[in-house]
């Protein structure tokens, strides 16, 4: 079936099957920042924003997003690069496979939470798994990125 969606502010028409998930559709379309790192809907690597909200694109049927606005990491390049530099400087980025999904969630958190506590940050980011690290570097980077009283 044919669906019309807005991907990174661009109107796009896509051909999808009824049981196709958005992560696969978007990767086929060229959005290779989307990864799949689990088979259990729990790793957060496939995070995209659907109408501004971070969601797991591995679990959203493409046919259901007709007319909706999708933002991938390719659509927020500048903001993503800014945080990615801090992430790398804190030594948090190792294999990097989980970084795009993590970055999308961090950017969403920044716009959703005002002056979050460390506990609130950890809670918001719990759905992003990193198999290389112990999350300490990521947390340092997030605090530095958000600035304010957390530093």
């Amino acid at each position: 079936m044919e669906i019309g969606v807005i991907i990174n502010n661009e109107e796009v028409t896509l051909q999808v099957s009824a049981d196709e998930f958005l992560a696969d559709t978007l990767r086929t379309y060229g959005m290779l920042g989307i990864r799949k790192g689990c088979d259990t809907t729990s790793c957060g690597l496939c995070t995209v924003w659907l109408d501004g909200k971070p969601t797991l694109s591995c679990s959203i049927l493409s046919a259901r997003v007709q007319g909706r606005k999708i933002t991938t990491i390719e659509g927020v390049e500048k903001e993503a690069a800014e945080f990615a530099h801090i992430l790398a400087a804190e030594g948090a980025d190792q294999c990097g496979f989980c970084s795009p999904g993590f970055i999308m969630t961090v950017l969403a958190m920044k716009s959703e939470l005002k002056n979050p506590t460390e506990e609130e940050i950890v809670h918001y980011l719990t759905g992003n798994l990193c198999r290389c690290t112990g999350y300490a570097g990521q947390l340092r980077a997030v605090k530095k990125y958000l600035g304010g009283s957390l530093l």
Partner: protein
Amino acid sequence: MFTIDNLVQPETLEEAYKILTEKRNNTILGGCAYLRLGSQRIGTAVDLSKMNLNFIKEQDEYIALGCMTTFRDVEISPVLHEYFGGVLPKAVSNVVGVQFRNIVTVGASVYARYGFSDLITPLLALDTEVQLYRGGRMSLEMFLNKPLEKDILATVFIKKSAKKAAYQHLRKSASDYPILNVAVSNLDNQWIIAVGARPQRAAISRHASEELSKGNMTNEKIDHIASLVAEELSYGTNMRGNAEYRKAISKVLVKRAISEVLQWK
């Protein structure tokens, strides 16, 4: 592998129910987070997202939750934070991550009666009713105990009151499925104790709830109630814990939940 031949987005519940019941393998879609892990071969998948069923409305006597309301909507709802000590936002906030909770729906979780549900247990401890398209309106407890028929769970209604409630759970790690969960509520010394993830679906411990409602709240009494709950309900074994373990921790969680409610001013 999970497959779908056809996907429709009807605009009325009537139309959705008609399509749902046309063929045996036609299915209503919730958030798909769990459905996709299975191997169901769906003929026509019925998506309810074009019916404005994503809402949390405060009515005169009830708080109404549309079936397409997501767990994240519940988690950040000002109304649900205001009532029952925010027990519902607190309970669902443990489910995987924000991105997952932005997908999974109230209707699918309740209708599917998932044993591991973090939502059903506190809903049982509140005065909750469900509105089914064909089956009509009934208490959540009645719905959970009746044989499952193909239907559409349209709305969840929670009776507004000054009920005090608490939610306790044990997990191997944050965001994992609960090994066991407990919700306790009290309004005018009428207590309800519900236990879920046993791993069977949540149930109310009626005898223990009645005994607790008789008052005389000493530490010994609470210990006794916790033991009654452990004896009254059945527990099972799965990869997260065995029946004996669940029975043992149910006493601890029940005691903590009762204590938490008693500490409310």
